[in-house]
């Protein structure tokens, strides 16, 4: 694992209590964390909350960060935990507001519906499938890492990814050619 691009000095300074250093870490890593939270939750307000919670939790836990792994990986795990712990209250909000909410699970078999934007299609996936697709398909988690983060078996993670891809292919009306 190449850790040479890690901001090790900044991490060490932040771990020692340097808030300016921690802000630099925030500036560097928050776009990725916010993107992750946005796709996992499908909702901007929830994604903002989770991003904030994740960085506050990271500040508190920074001393336990194992420098043998990537800082971004560690942050990702914190963010995933935050999303999952909000999921129960989040579902109701998710079902209400977003423009891409309420999409059918299967596309019109006749193919009459137009292809949908992929972001909306991902947001419309069932929770389990969406989480695995986002973690494994977009953010590069291994199935083992995703399974551990989501509290499922590795086989379940693989099955959910397969399901997610099938649903997306169907929903997006991807052509067989």
């Amino acid at each position, binding site marked *: 694992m190449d850790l040479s691009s890690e901001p090790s000095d900044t991490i060490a300074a932040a771990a020692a209590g340097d808030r300016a250093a921690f802000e630099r870490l925030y500036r560097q890593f928050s776009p990725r964390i916010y993107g992750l939270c946005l796709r996992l939750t499908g909702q901007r307000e929830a994604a903002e909350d989770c991003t904030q919670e994740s960085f506050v939790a990271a500040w508190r836990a920074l001393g336990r960060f194992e420098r043998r792994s990537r800082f971004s990986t560690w942050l990702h795990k914190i963010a995933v*935990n935050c999303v*999952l*712990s909000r999921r129960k209250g989040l579902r109701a909000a998710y079902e209400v507001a977003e423009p891409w909410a309420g999409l059918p699970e299967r596309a019109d078999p006749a193919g009459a519906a137009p292809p949908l934007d992929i972001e909306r299609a991902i947001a419309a996936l069932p929770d389990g499938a969406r989480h695995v697709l986002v973690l494994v398909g977009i953010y590069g988690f291994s199935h083992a890492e995703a399974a*551990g*983060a989501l*509290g*499922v078996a590795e086989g379940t993670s693989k099955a959910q990814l397969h399901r997610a891809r099938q649903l997306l292919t169907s929903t997006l009306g991807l052509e067989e050619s």
Partner: protein
Amino acid sequence: MTQFQFAHRLANPTLVCGLALLGSPWSLAFAATAIDEHRPANPRGAVEIDNVAGSIDVQGWDKSEVAVTGTVGKDVERVDVTDDGNLTSIRVVLPNGRHWGGRDGEAHLTIRVPANSSVSTSMVSSDQKITAVRGALELRAVSGNISGEGGGDLRANDVSGNIHFTATAAKRIEVKAISGDIILSGGNADVEASTVSGDAHLTLGTVSRARFKTVSGSVSATLAAAADAQIDGESVSGNITLNFAGEPAADYDVRTLSGAIDNCFGPKPVAARVGPGTRLTFKTGEGSARVHLSSNSGDVKLCTKK
């Protein structure tokens, strides 16, 4: 304060043979000097005992007196026996503040104390046995076993020795071992038992407060839970097994990150909703009792006494 110091004499073979009557198995094996000291003592006073190596046998009796008998090796500088009317102190001292002296640095003492005394001990490499003492006991050892039975509250802390104790009349029990085992019989008491790598086996009565902690050793307890019992357990990799008298009405929260949960009553454990691990949560009855157990990789078992 009156003070008496026993002046050490070099042993000679004649003296050694003469000490055989003290019954110590060591008295014929190494050069030893006899101890025989008596001090008046408050029948409800405190007795404090420090020994470096060897053994102590503390026995409660019905006299208002502390009696110290036994043998000390030739390298023991002195045995200080002091009293101030309420506190009797017995300290075995090696030369130059040393804390070990081989066999010749050992003291093997029988110490009789008023039965209602409270007793505190601090042993380095010495075994200790306490019997027929009804006051509070505070027993500590670095290496050396702690054993016996007592009537009062018990606090026992042993780094590398074992703790085997019966304290059925105690209202509060705290036992702590690191690498030694704990075998404890208690009654209706608040209990705290902690081990690092040794195993703990506890037979208890009706418990209101209990806390079990282990790192890698196993903890198994047989107990009944009071209606408002607060029972907590924590483990890193050791197993926790609780066998209850009946199924206590309580709020149960059992979690393990990578161990297994096995319960004879209540629902089946399920995967944790957030993060990895397995969890068992259920509530029975309307009372305020709780059973909260958590482990990293150790197994947790809840069952009823057979």
